[in-house]
């Protein structure tokens, strides 16, 4: 957190400094380093954040989020609300008014047709659009006139800010992409590598998985921005070398996603050439508890299904004891340094939706032992606790990742001290997250007692994220093991709250409900044991000004305002 304070201080200092950068293209070259190289500049066909963030310098959505998660207008004159008439009373339509005289980087005018086209482009069934969910629930997108676009929803939508909002939903130019709809989408290499946009920069050259070269967009709507004449994104290598190129050798101005071990963070910061900045979104590293029996003795098709409740985790005291035995602060210190904070919440941000649940932070091994004793789980001859002939023996799986293996080792130690027999397993991330219904090792299949990974939600509203824990979202053989309710958690009271949340419009009431649901999954039932609230750690040189790290939108959301500190 100290870094954050530093950053705020630095930001304040920049805000006070007189703006000496009042002209476009006067500050030379901006050099960015990405540990994962950019593969494509069309977010609708991309499977990775690296591409989405790079593209955000070039193509823009109608509106985005600032560093506090507040919606800000980009290509529109104001954010529509019910009060200003932009959103209809029944919440079924939303109307955006474009800024006057908007131009694409090729000099042609941006009109409402381009927005309608973007909708058609992504929703074409043969296109394989990665951001399809952004357009969920829309029945029609139409151009009222050249500068007005109206979106009609199939049903009342309390939160209509999804389509054309944020980094994953930018506007494409109809003239450029017209021949790329549907099955032709992947074959439009030139378009996908050099989209024409409205952002502060435009592409001059692109080499796949290596370099994006850009220059200031001459048609950018603010004639004084961006301050940099050119920008380059160099990709490849690893987080460590990326961070080094900013923090130690000073070859680059900004490095995205420099998640490196805490001791390296400290050593590089000590060189004084740059600083690490952290954006805390909703990403939480957690242990998920399997509420069903994963035993290999069960026939295939019944393992890890609701047909067989878990023999030991059916006792809530066991789940609570496992959580109490963990010292989350040590985990943060070992694994993430400035890039993480201990948490007890499934929804750790934004602040409005965050429950004040901090009871798990302090480790309580004795309390955990006492809890198990009281519940009848007593140590047997081999020191392993047992009750009614059932032993506290668990299989704990996660992906192959050095930090996760450290976590596994530490947590195994604590749980062993508790009298729990722990077996560890590490799975290749490509398999674990690969979703192959034929593999026994996917995280959805969950052929283990507990598993650890990180997950989050996009945007600032956790509704769909919390709705994942409804009974019918459980992965099961009938659905080819697809579904996001990894724990197979099932509580009618929770399902009722999911329904209630989807029809609640008042923001304060929504937040209250979301907090209650968060508590139900975490501190009340310990179905999910949250460990670390993870941020994305990036680095920028001290010679680069204007950086405001943002977890809710692209990190480069305000790249137009960046400047060279002289």
């Amino acid at each position, binding site marked *: 957190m100290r870094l954050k304070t530093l950053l705020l201080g630095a930001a304040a200092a920049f805000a006070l400094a007189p703006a000496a950068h009042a002209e476009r293209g006067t500050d030379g070259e901006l050099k960015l*380093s990405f540990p994962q*190289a950019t*593969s*494509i500049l069309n977010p609708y*066909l991309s*499977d*990775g*954040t690296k591409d989405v963030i790079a593209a955000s310098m070039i193509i823009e959505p109608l509106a985005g989020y600032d560093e506090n998660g507040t919606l800000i207008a980009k290509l529109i004159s104001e954010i529509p609300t019910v009060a200003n008439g932009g959103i209809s009373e029944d919440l079924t339509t939303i109307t955006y008014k474009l800024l006057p005289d908007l131009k694409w980087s090729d000099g042609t005018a941006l009109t409402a047709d381009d927005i309608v086209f973007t909708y058609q482009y992504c929703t074409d*069934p*043969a*296109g*394989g*659009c*990665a951001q*399809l*969910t952004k357009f969920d629930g829309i029945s029609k997108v139409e151009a009222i006139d050249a500068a007005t676009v109206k979106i009609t929803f199939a049903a009342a939508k309390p939160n209509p800010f999804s389509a054309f909002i944020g980094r994953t939903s930018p506007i494409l130019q109809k003239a450029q992409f017209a021949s790329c709809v549907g*099955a032709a*989408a*992947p*074959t*439009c*290499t030139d378009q*996908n*590598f050099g989209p024409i946009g409205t952002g502060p920069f435009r592409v001059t*050259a692109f*080499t*796949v*998985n*290596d*370099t994006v*070269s850009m220059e200031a967009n001459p048609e950018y709507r603010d004639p004084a921005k961006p301050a940099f004449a050119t920008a380059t994104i*160099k*990709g*490849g*290598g*690893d987080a460590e*070398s990326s961070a*080094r*190129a900013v923090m*130690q*050798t000073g*070859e*680059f101005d900004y490095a995205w996603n420099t998640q490196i071990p805490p001791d390296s963070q400290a050593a590089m910061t000590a060189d004084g050439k740059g600083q690490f900045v952290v954006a805390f979104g909703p990403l939480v590293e957690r242990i998920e508890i399997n509420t069903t029996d994963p035993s290999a003795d069960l026939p295939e098709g019944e393992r890890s299904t609701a047909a067989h409740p878990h023999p030991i985790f059916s006792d809530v005291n066991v789940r609570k004891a496992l959580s109490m035995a963990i010292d989350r602060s040590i985990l943060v210190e070992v694994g993430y340094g400035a890039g993480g904070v201990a948490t007890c919440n499934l929804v750790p941000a934004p602040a409005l939706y965050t429950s004040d649940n901090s009871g798990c932070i302090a480790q309580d091994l004795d309390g955990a032992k006492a809890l198990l004793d009281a519940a009848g789980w007593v140590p047997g001859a081999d020191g392993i606790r047992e009750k009614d002939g059932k032993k506290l023996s668990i299989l704990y799986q996660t992906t192959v990742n050095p930090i996760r293996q450290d976590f596994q080792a530490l947590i195994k130690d604590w749980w062993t001290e508790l009298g729990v027999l722990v077996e560890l397993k590490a799975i*290749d*991330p*490509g*398999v*674990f*997250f*690969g*979703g*192959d219904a034929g*593999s026994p090792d996917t995280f959805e299949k969950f052929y283990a007692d507990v598993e650890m990974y990180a*997950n*989050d*939600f*996009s945007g600032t509203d956790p509704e769909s994220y919390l709705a994942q824990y409804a009974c019918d979202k459980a992965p099961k053989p009938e659905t080819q093991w*697809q*579904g*996001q309710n990894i724990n197979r958690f099932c509580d009618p009271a929770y399902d009722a709250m999911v329904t209630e949340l989807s029809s609640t419009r008042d923001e304060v009431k929504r937040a209250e409900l979301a907090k209650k649901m968060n508590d139900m999954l975490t501190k009340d039932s310990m179905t999910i044991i949250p460990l670390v609230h993870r941020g994305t750690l990036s680095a920028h040189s001290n010679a680069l000004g204007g950086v405001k790290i943002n977890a809710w939108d692209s990190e480069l959301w305000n790249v137009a305002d960046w400047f060279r500190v002289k």
Partner: protein
Amino acid sequence: MLTFTLRRLLLAIPTLLVISLVIFLLVDLAPGSPMSEIPLTVPPDVRQKMIAALGADQPVFVRYFLWLRQFFWVEPATVFDGWFGTNMAGDEQRILSWQSRSPVFTIIGQRVPQTLTVIGTAYLIGILIAVPIGIYSAYRQYSWFDQAGTMFAMIGFSVPTFFSGTLFIIIFAVWLGWFPTKYDTTLNVTDWASFIKQVKQMTLPVMTLGLANAAAISRYMRSSMLENMSQDYVRTARAKGMSERTVVLKHVLRNSMIPVVTVIALGIPSIFGGAIITENLFGVNGIGAALIGAIHSNDIPMVQTLAFIFAVLIVIFNLIADVLYGFLDPRIRYE
């Protein structure tokens, strides 16, 4: 010699076909999915649609034959069209990378120059360092120079490039600040200043790889020289009163070069194959970096095509090495 070459070339065709099938099955059956990098926030049905749009949901043999057709017909036809302005390939789909949705051969075309400049230079410098070390080490066996050469070779052999590379970065880039750590692939050499820049950015990767290459070749050179030094013809040459210089550099060296040239020729495919670790470490966007990136993201068409090209190169350079052997050593005839 010609019939031998032709026979070997014909035999290579079934070999390569089997290799291509084995590679395809290996890559395809390996666990993982092209969608494993997509964030968990993307729901399963959208993932399914994305897989379908890539054609990745087709049965494995359909995809194999499609790949064969693309590799042996569509891609050469596209090249032909490019040269002569014909339209043989028509609208047929080229091999597309799943990760970037661009033709695999375009990516390879972009990357081969970098690999050849950096890895090729490293190989050349490795040879230039290794050959004299090997010669002198053998001539003065067990001298301090030989001991030092042996130590150099041991270090080059046993220190992995990810370690030596990082060490060089910390010494020469972080502490001394002489060289950049990231290779700028957009740099065009147009004048003296940009040439110096190019040399500077090549120094660290070339040093790292050159050390490893030189180590191996110098050992081959040394042992080959030692073997020849004790031969009868060497004694005869000395007895005839030839200078040491003539004996070592003319008689012994020529004969010792035969196996070394073969080793060098067999090593050439690895130049095209790039150096996965070194390229990644220094941000050289070569073939090796492309391969590892494609493996990470389960980009099967890319991995398959690259692996097959390596197989072709290895088969060809094996043949070249064999033919070279016949030229260099009159005792060997393939008739």
